[in-house]
């Protein structure tokens, strides 16, 4: 009894807590022009839907209680049958009104579909997103090849400008989705899908893969970090730079560990490591999370992830590493210079 009450009280508390706490994946409010008209349409259709349910519910209740039949079937009246008297007006009127609402909703839908198909101005930049089980590779394209760079899982964009996304997959189907900025686009191998997003307010917008893509589908998150254009340019410059050379003997030891254990899969620009299977780590320390949003990027998490990725994210393509204590310490010292 007491346990039951505790559970109920706890539930009520968490419910109200959740109701007010942030829901970073909710799209009931959006923050850019790829989302605004859709959100309005969504609310509109939602209100129509709830109204329909309420009206039908009331009609049903009215119909059920308006003229009760006999309480028991043993009642001789129970078997009395009414003649087929009318009722067709219900269908004519009901279907007539439904059709009008429907046509309105359809037109609204087609208009919004056309409006959000393309941004109103030319996109400020193009980000090529290449999804793999279970992370996102990013490539910032510009006309000058020297200013192209790659990153992973965290997409920086300038506030107030539309950004074009060209998405494709190296393996299975994924779906690229940042709910607070706009709808999904499936990420399909062998084809490049295009979408656009724009953030009108600086901030961090969470995204997540939305099509089942194998064991770790649940933990394939991404983040969009919207910055003022000046901050964005600064970030861009920092990403363009090569990784710093190791300064201390320990960091130099760390590069050798990286070379022997990590470089087959990971790139660090400005070093000999040029693997293309895993994320580009040139500026690992500038990222907020590890393993596609699974861990926050702290030294402890990083060390744990390097040694035991299979317990952090079972099934991940990254194998567990056998490193001695000094090797791990050296590797960590080196990685922590990659700002």
């Amino acid at each position, binding site marked *: 009894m007491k346990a039951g009450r505790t559970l109920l009280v706890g*539930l009520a508390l968490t*419910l109200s807590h959740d109701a007010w706490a*942030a*829901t*970073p994946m*909710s*799209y*009931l409010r959006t923050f850019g022009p790829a989302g605004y008209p859709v959100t309005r349409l*969504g609310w509109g259709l939602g209100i*129509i839907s709830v109204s329909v*349910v309420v009206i039908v519910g009331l009609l*049903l209740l009215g119909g*059920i209680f308006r*003229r*009760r*039949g*006999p309480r028991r*079937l043993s009642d001789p009246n*129970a078997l*009395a*049958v*009414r*003649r*087929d*008297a*009318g*009722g*067709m007006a219900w*269908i004519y*009127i*009901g*279907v007539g009104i*439904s*059709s009008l609402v*429907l046509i309105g909703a359809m037109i609204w*839908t087609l208009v919004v*579909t056309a409006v959000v*198909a393309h941004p109103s101005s030319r996109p400020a930049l193009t980000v090529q997103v290449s999804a793999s089980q279970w992370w996102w590779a990013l490539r910032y394209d510009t006309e000058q090849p020297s200013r192209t760079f790659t990153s992973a899982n965290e997409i920086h964009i300038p506030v107030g400008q539309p950004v074009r996304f060209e998405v494709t997959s190296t393996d*299975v*189907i994924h*779906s690229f*989705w940042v709910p607070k900025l*706009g*709808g*999904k686009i499936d990420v*399909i*191998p*062998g*084809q490049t899908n*295009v979408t656009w997003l724009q953030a009108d307010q600086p901030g961090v917008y*969470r995204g997540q*893969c*939305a099509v*089942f893509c*194998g*064991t*770790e*589908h*649940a933990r394939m998150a991404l983040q969009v970090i919207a910055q003022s254009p000046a901050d964005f340019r600064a970030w861009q410059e920092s990403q363009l730079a090569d990784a710093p050379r190791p300064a201390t003997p320990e960091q130099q030891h760390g590069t050798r560990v990286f070379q022997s254990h990590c470089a087959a899969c990971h790139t660090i620009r400005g070093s000999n490591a040029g693997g293309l299977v895993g994320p580009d780590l040139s500026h690992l320390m500038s990222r907020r999370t590890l393993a596609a949003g699974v861990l926050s990027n702290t030294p402890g998490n990083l060390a744990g992830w390097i040694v035991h990725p299979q317990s952090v994210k079972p*099934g991940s393509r990254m194998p567990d590493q056998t490193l001695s204590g000094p090797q791990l310490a050296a590797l960590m010292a080196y990685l922590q210079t990659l700002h």
Partner: protein
Amino acid sequence: MTRTETHRAPVIAQATDASPSSDTLRKNWEGPGGWRGWLSTVDHKEIGKRYLLTAFVFLLIGGLEAAVMRAQLATPDGHLLSAEQYAQLFTMHGVTMIFLYALPVLSGFSNYLWPLLLGSRDMAFPRLNAFSYWVFLFAGIFLYASFVMGKAPDDGWFNYVPYASREFNPGPNIDVYALGMVLLGVSTTVGSINFIVTLFRTRAPGMSINRVPILVWGTLTASVGNLFAVPAVSLAFLMLWMDRQLGTHFFDVSAGGQPLLWQHLFWMFGHPWVYAIVLPAMGIVSDGLPTFCRRPLVGYTAVALATVTTMVLGFGVWAHHMFATGLPVMSLSYFSASSMVIVIPSAVAVFAWIATIWTGRPVFTTAFLYFSSFVLLFVIGGVSGFMTASVPVDLELTHTYFVVAHLHYVLIGINVFPVVGGIYYWFPKITGRMMSERLGKWSFWIMFIGFNVGFFPMHILGLAGMPRRVYTYPSGLGWGSWNMVATLGSYLFAIGIAMFLVNVWISLKRGKAAGRNPWGAPSLEWSTSSPPPVYNFAVIPNVASRYPLWEGYMDDDEDTGGSTIHEGLLLDHGRETIGTTMLDAEPAVILKMPGDTYTPLLLALALTLLFVGLLAQAWWAVGAGVLLTLLATITWLWPQRKLSQIER
């Protein structure tokens, strides 16, 4: 009778189950009994009951799988299940509920009821009926054999490539699914053909096409739909299996194959299939509501046409499952509009049901509670479908729990609720005993509340951005407590289902005797004994109106008929029933019906052996399977003099 009879003027007689003529009929129709009879019967009532029972067993298995998943999702970062276990569970849950429960349970109703509704003595092809059941059973066991070995299908029921290809999914998991689905498709196809021919060939004289119950319209529509839809998915699964095992490249991206081809083929099947598993259930309600509202269904013709229209439109909307795949704006707009248009036939049915309740005098039986609450659940599932039909909104909603909520309102609201209501309605006919109304009402309220508490919050979770098919989720996204509510609600729903099953169990043994027509219902099945005799009707009734047992109660011109229930064609020279013309049901031919036989079982076993051989790549088994399939087919088709049709 030494020569083959080609002409006979059948005897018209007055008879009931108590008449002496019925002893002859019983002798003609009764099988050998015992385990031999059990394995060889072709009686549609036996087969119907088996379909119902087997489908409910699969419902319970699928429900247990769901219960384990809900335990995993109740709290953030749950670790009851591994990701791979969760993937197998959600895949098998979907496969079980959609393929092994939802259609088979309706086939069970239709198999049991059709000849009784139509005034016939069996389905048009009784042996095909038995074959269809056995193949369904074996395909179900085939799919579940892999589950026991821990290698169940794990790419969702939609089974998208390339994740389903050998490169990313090398185990036997997907092969089991692919072959199992092709095997199951055989069952669905022959079952559908049987329903279609039964409807157009074996209705009682006078039961013109505008007098058949809506359940018949629903199952007919579903069957025609299946005939067009199932080939797409059988083909897709065959191509996938060939990609995986024989090195073809239909879906292989590196060789120019198309992952989207799979999605098109799958949803060209998948969407009509959704209608196939709800339209007969809607028919159950359209036929049940009038009984408990004590008046004919409002708008019979409109509802029948809406049923057919829904299916026709249902073939033009498959791409609304693919709005996010990068289709051009023009096709998005078309598929969005066509999906929305389906609201119109649905609205016809909804307002017909409401009008029937409003202008009737509702009797509050348990079955009525299920049928009337179904209308509300239908509308909730309908409007959420309307929202997802809108392309731009769907690009946010799709792949989220909003769709999970939608599809459960559709499949539980429009399939499970009418099915359980239908059991309460027809249980007296099937068993001769009434179910407990008191326990029935308790089970209804617990199911209804549990269902809504369990599944409505999934709308909210979807709006809060929770994707489908995740085995876990972090805290801090606002999903935790609603998931807890959903878990608790779904467990309550499970308790309601359990109470319903307890009610069935108790009532089987201790229910009150039902009599012929305990509900004062209008259709032919209630004119015969409960349970019906093995030959269904002592004489083939003549039907002159839509509600033959209500004639004389209604003073409506059209519906006062002159149906004769206990006077009609006797047809007692062996197993016989009458064949009638397609639209007007005028008697045309005496159909000689086959006796009990093991051939359907043997053919099903041979076919299953073939598929097991393909799965194991044991080519000797494949060869044996092909050979035995041929032999069984030849045995089946071998001409029998006693089965030649007789002109009247």
